[in-house]
C-alpha cells in the first residue's frame, strides 16, 4: 500500500508519501496564487523524490484550504482531522494539538484513541497566525527564518497590545522609531501570538501531552513564548510543518 497526503495551505503546499515501512518522502513548497497547480506540483515533486510512478500510488487524501480543488485525490478531509491523525502517529501520548498555520491557528483536543474530541479556531482575523509573523518580518526587514533565534537573545519582550495585525504592525514601526532592540521587538511579537493562541487553548482545555504542529512550530521563539504562557512543555516534531499531510497520508492508507 502506497498512500499520499497533500496539504494545500494558504501559504505553503505540503505532501507526504507513505509506504509499508512508514514515511518515504515529504516535500514543502509555496502555494502561490494557484492552489490547484501547487497541489499537483508538490505531489509530482514528492513522488519524484521516491522511485514510485503515479500508477503505483493506491490512495490520495487532500487536506488544507485547497483540499476541494485537488481533483486527483480520492477524498478531501479537513486539516483538523488530518493534524490529529498525523500528531497521534508521531506520538500516541498527544492529547492536545496547537497548530499555527499560515492563515489560522487551531487547538485540537484528542481522545485516547487519537480521535478529535473538540477543536477551536481563531476568529476570522490573521492575528495569531503565520501571516502575522510574515507581516512583522517585512516591517523589520528580516528573514522569517531568523526570527526564532533572534528572539531567544532578547532581554525582554517589547509590549505589543493591538489585536489587529495591521495595527500591530504600526506598533512595531513605532517601536523601531523609538530605538527598541530588534530582538526585544521580535520577542514582543511572539508574546502577542502566544497570548492569543493561549486563550483559545485554555478554552478547549489543555491535556498533556501538548504537541505543536504547523509551519510556525519551526519558530523556536514562538514555541518558547507559548510554553511559558501556558506553563506546560510543548512537543515539537521534526515533521511539524508536514503533520497535516502526514495525517492525510495515514487516512488515505486507511481508505484501503
Amino acid at each position: 500500500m502506497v498512500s499520499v497526503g497533500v496539504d494545500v495551505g494558504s501559504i505553503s503546499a505540503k505532501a507526504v508519501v507513505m509506504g509499508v515501512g512508514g514515511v518515504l518522502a515529504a516535500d514543502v513548497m509555496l502555494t502561490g496564487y494557484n492552489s490547484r497547480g501547487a497541489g499537483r506540483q508538490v505531489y509530482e515533486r514528492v513522488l519524484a523524490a521516491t522511485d514510485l510512478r503515479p500508477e503505483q500510488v493506491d490512495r490520495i487524501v487532500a487536506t488544507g484550504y485547497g483540499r476541494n480543488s485537488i481533483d486527483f485525490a480520492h477524498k478531501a478531509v479537513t486539516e483538523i482531522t488530518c493534524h490529529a491523525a498525523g500528531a497521534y502517529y508521531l506520538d500516541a501520548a498527544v492529547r492536545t494539538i496547537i497548530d499555527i498555520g499560515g492563515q489560522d491557528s487551531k487547538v485540537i483536543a484528542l481522545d485516547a484513541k487519537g480521535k478529535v474530541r473538540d477543536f477551536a479556531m481563531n476568529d476570522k482575523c490573521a492575528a495569531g497566525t503565520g501571516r502575522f509573523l510574515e507581516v512583522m518580518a517585512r516591517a523589520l526587514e528580516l528573514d522569517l527564518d531568523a526570527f526564532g533565534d533572534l528572539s531567544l537573545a532578547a532581554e525582554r519582550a517589547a509590549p505589543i497590545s493591538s489585536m489587529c495585525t495591521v495595527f500591530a504592525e504600526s506598533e512595531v514601526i513605532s517601536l523601531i522609531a523609538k530605538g527598541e532592540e530588534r530582538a526585544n521587538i521580535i520577542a514582543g511579537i511572539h508574546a502577542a501570538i502566544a497570548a492569543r493562541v493561549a486563550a483559545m487553548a485554555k478554552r478547549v482545555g489543555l491535556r498533556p501531552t501538548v504537541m505543536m504542529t504547523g509551519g510556525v512550530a519551526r519558530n523556536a521563539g514562538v514555541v518558547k513564548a507559548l510554553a511559558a504562557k501556558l506553563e506546560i512543555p510543548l512537543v515539537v516534531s521534526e515533521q511539524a510543518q508536514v503533520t497535516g499531510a502526514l495525517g492525510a497520508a495515514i487516512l488515505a492508507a486507511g481508505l484501503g
Partner: protein
Amino acid sequence: MGEDGRVLDPDREKRKIKADKRMREIMAEYYIEAKTPREQRGKPIAWITSGGPVEPLHVMDVIPVYPENYGAMIGASKMGVGLCETAEEMGYSRDLCSYARADIASATVNGGPIGGLPEPDMLICCNNICGTVLKWYEVQARYFNVPLFIFDTPITHTRFDDDMRRYVKRQSKEYIAFLERVCGKPFDQDRMKVVGELSLEGQALWQEILETTMHKPAPMTCFDAFFHLAMIVTLRGTQTAVDYYKMLLAEMRERVAQGIGMLAEEKYRLVWDNIPIWYRMRWLSEKFMARSACLVADTYTSGWTGWLPGADRNDFLGFMGESYARIFLNSGTDLMAENILRMVEKYHADGVVFHSNRSCKPYSLGQYDIQRIVQEKMGIPTLMIEADMVDERSFAESQIDTRIDAFIEMLG
C-alpha cells in the same frame, strides 16, 4: 419543470413543504395592508420588538410591524451590507446590532425590500430580548416624533420572584393606559380574552409543529422553522396564524405518517443555537444536507412558545408580563444551558451547532460556557460558527466551511 423552466429533482419536490406557498401569500397580504396609505387603511401602525407583548395591539386595532422581522428580510435579500454601511456613514458603530443598523438606515433612506417599513404611529419596545432595543427605539421615536412605550422585563437569572411579578404586572396596566391614550379609545377586555386565546392557541400549535421533528426522519429542519416562524412573530394573536399553523401541522403529521423526511438520508441530528444567518440560509442548509446532517431543532424558533404552563387563560393581562419576561433570551446562562440540554435529549441530537452572532450579545455571551456544559453533561460534539445574522462582512466562507466539515468528521 418549474415555473422558470428549470428541470426539477422529483425527490426534492416530494420533500418540499406545500404550505410554503400559503405562508408567502399571508405575509404578502400582511405587508400590503401595513403599506397601504394611512387614509385608506384607517388603522394606526405600531413598531414593536420581536418578543414584545403584541396582543393588546390587536385588541386596539393597531397593526403591529416588526423591525426585526424586517431585518431578517433585509438579511435574506442580501441587502444588509448596504444598509449597515449607510448606518455607519450616519455615525453608528459597526459593533452595533445589524438589525438596529439596518432598521435605522432603512428608515432614513426608505431602502431595503418592499421599500422600507410603513411609518409608525407609536413604538412598543420590550427589553426581554436585549438592551440595544432601548436606545434603538429611542432613536426612532425621536426620528418619527411618535410616542414610545418601554416594557421593562427583569432578567430571570435563576428564578422569578413576587417582586418581579408585581413589577411586570404594573407595567401591563401602564401599557394599556398608554394604548388608550394614544388610540383615543377604551380598551376592550372582552376582546382581550379572544385575542389572548388566539395567541395561546397559535403558540401551542407552533410548539406542536416544532415537536414533529422528534420523529425520525424529521419532516422539516430548523431552516424550515426559521421561515415558518414569521407567522408566530408577526401575526401572534390572530385567527390567520391559528388557521395557517393548523394547516402546517396537518401537513407535518402527514409527512410523519408517510415517513417523508426533509433529508433523503438523515445520518446525524443536530440542534442549532442563536439567530439564523439570514443571508446564508440556503448555503448552510445545503451544506448540512449534503453531509446527511439534519438540524432538527433550535433554541430560536421555540422562543415564541414560552407561555407559562398553568397560567390562567382567562386572565391574559395578569400573566402577560411574566410570560414575556421569562423567555429564553431573558434568562441566565444556567437556564439557557438547561434548555439546550433538554432539547438534545428530547430531539435525540448527536451534536449542537452554535452561531456566535456578532450582533446579538445576550444570545452569544454565554455560549462558550454553554458549549462546555453540553460537552461535559452530554458528551456530544459541538461546533462554534462565528458570523452575523445580517452583516455579511462578518461571514468567512472558507473558515466556516472547514469548521463544518471538521465537525461532521468528528460526528462520523
